């Protein structure tokens, strides 16, 4: 019986011939990412030894620059950890900082066939690089740093076969919202993305889909490798690359085709990502207080560039706070160099430093009672971005930018179609 991409990597890294759904496999971990929350006083347990400091990456992203004394204390503990174990890949506030999942892309930390863990749920983001990456718990991360291994439970795999090309003003976020809206959660299962439609999607676009797969409750989300992907990784990481392809007779729980040409801009209504998508027209006209672009899902250069194209030469509606958070300093610098930052600023956007920030209700745009936000971030759970009575709609960066201009939820095609 053939294996899916996830099953093949689990088998290879677990030293087994085959792996099938239901198996629990202990695997070698190639990359362990720790971030500021791990070092918070109410989470951290002091580590006395690590297996291999070269496999560890430390990132400050959730609460930077530190908004509270507790966050500052946690980051101090993190810096001490980095010093004590001589961790080289350390992304402190400064030139190389960013959201961990963006840094994985910026610095080529994930290579095909590898295993990467981090205790942030959106770590499945790195699955775009044809590897096994997933969010684990804080204790798992400490265990993996110390022992160099972790356990995974293998689930069934759902394969999404992408065909065609997205229409103008429709993005990978909309493709994801289509999947989440129609098929709902994929709890205990893996998702695998492939098919001829890949060719039309940038790595950043694909990364939106793997990142958002956390919202499907997917165990692992992986993309097939193609030349574009291998070029991206090899430009950033000198390691020899070995793409992992599913076996021709791999067994899937389901294979579903997504015709990208047929998709339209979608919005997830407040309080849930799954089974909650509607065409933007259904909620168009809903007044907003805040429009937010950012996070590990949609804070890439592509996303900022798309937002800039929407707002070019226009002004954000009075009374609307338009907050744009580049996902990393690299993205921020590139956007600045290309004039994207200037365009956004001219339109009235506030550019926040790279951080998870308000996506998790941390800081830099937290919502007050009854406020309404449209966001391109990862989650819209009740109270996720602030007060439990606030309402968070989720759409693509184009939809968010168009809504910021209009002051109400708006179809981006009004601004982007020729």
């Amino acid at each position, binding site marked *: 019986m053939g294996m899916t991409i996830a099953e093949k990597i689990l088998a290879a890294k677990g030293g087994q011939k085959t792996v099938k759904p239901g198996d629990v496999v202990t695997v070698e971990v190639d990359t362990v990412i720790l971030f500021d*929350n791990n070092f918070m006083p109410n989470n951290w347990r002091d580590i006395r030894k690590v297996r291999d400091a070269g496999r560890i990456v430390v990132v400050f992203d959730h609460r930077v620059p530190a908004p509270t004394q507790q966050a500052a204390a946690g980051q101090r503990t993190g810096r001490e950890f980095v010093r004590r174990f001589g961790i080289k890949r350390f992304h402190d506030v400064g030139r190389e900082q960013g959201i961990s999942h963006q840094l994985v892309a910026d610095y080529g930390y994930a290579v095909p066939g590898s295993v990467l863990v981090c205790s942030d749920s959106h770590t499945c983001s790195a699955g775009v690089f044809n590897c096994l990456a997933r969010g684990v718990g804080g204790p798992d991360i400490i265990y993996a740093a110390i022992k160099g291994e972790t356990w995974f439970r293998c689930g069934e795999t759902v394969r999404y076969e992408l065909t065609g090309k997205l229409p103008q003003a429709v993005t990978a976020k909309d493709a994801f919202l289509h999947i989440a809206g129609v098929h709902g959660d994929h709890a205990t299962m893996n998702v695998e993305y492939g098919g001829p439609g890949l060719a039309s999607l940038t790595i950043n676009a694909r990364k939106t889909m793997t990142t958002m797969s956390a919202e499907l409750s997917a165990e692992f989300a992986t993309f097939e490798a193609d030349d574009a992907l291998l070029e991206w990784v090899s430009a950033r990481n000198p390691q020899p690359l070995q793409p992992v392809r599913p076996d021709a007779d791999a067994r899937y729980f389901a294979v579903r085709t997504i015709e990208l040409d047929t998709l339209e801009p979608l919005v997830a209504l407040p309080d849930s990502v799954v089974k909650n998508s509607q065409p933007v027209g259904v909620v168009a006209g809903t007044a907003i207080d805040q429009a937010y672009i950012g996070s590990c899902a949609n804070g890439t250069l592509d996303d900022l560039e798309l937002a800039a194209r929407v707002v070019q030469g226009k002004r954000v509606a009075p009374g609307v706070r338009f907050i744009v958070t580049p996902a990393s300093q690299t993205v921020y610098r590139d956007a600045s160099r290309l004039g994207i930052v200037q365009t956004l600023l001219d339109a009235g956007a506030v550019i926040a430093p790279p951080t998870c920030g308000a996506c998790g209700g941390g800081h830099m745009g937290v919502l007050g009672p009854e406020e309404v936000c449209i966001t391109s971030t990862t989650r819209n759970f009740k109270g996720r971005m602030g007060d439990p009575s606030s309402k968070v709609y989720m759409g693509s960066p184009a939809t968010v930018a168009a809504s910021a201009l209009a002051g109400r939820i708006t179809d981006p095609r009004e601004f982007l179609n020729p």
Partner: protein
Amino acid sequence: MKFTARVWKAGDNINTDLILPNKAFYLTVEEQPSYVFSANRPGWSSQVQKGDILIGGHNFGMGSSRPAARSLKNLGLSCLVAHSINGLFFRNCVNFAFPALECPGIAEAFEEGDVAEIEFEAGRVRNVTRGTELQAKPLPPKLLALVMAGGIYPLLEKEGLIAPKA
């Protein structure tokens, strides 16, 4: 392990932010449990008695990696049984040694306030009030052993690999 207690019911797609809201982020481990479900069921956390059992629906614990399972345990709940459990949340249950089982059909088999009897290792779930029985998916031996050992931290402490709890 065998748990016999009254059950509370949570619905489908219960997310981690409802269990451990951002508001409680900076609080101590001991303070966090009182915020469980404060947004969707205010006042509930103070009604939970030690040993009570939580019954969940589909996709319980979707969302973040935050130690939400730790809050359920520290709230005094003895066990979670849900139709399906988000993989990351399930890991945290194992990590923090909070007994959790997946049991298809569980949500329909219980009304809130019914008494459940759960044999954790075997995965046997009985509704004592109604006299019905269901079979949950028992934990794989490796994960069961981790739960029985008290989770990851006690294991690493015993080996001297992490500092003892302050």
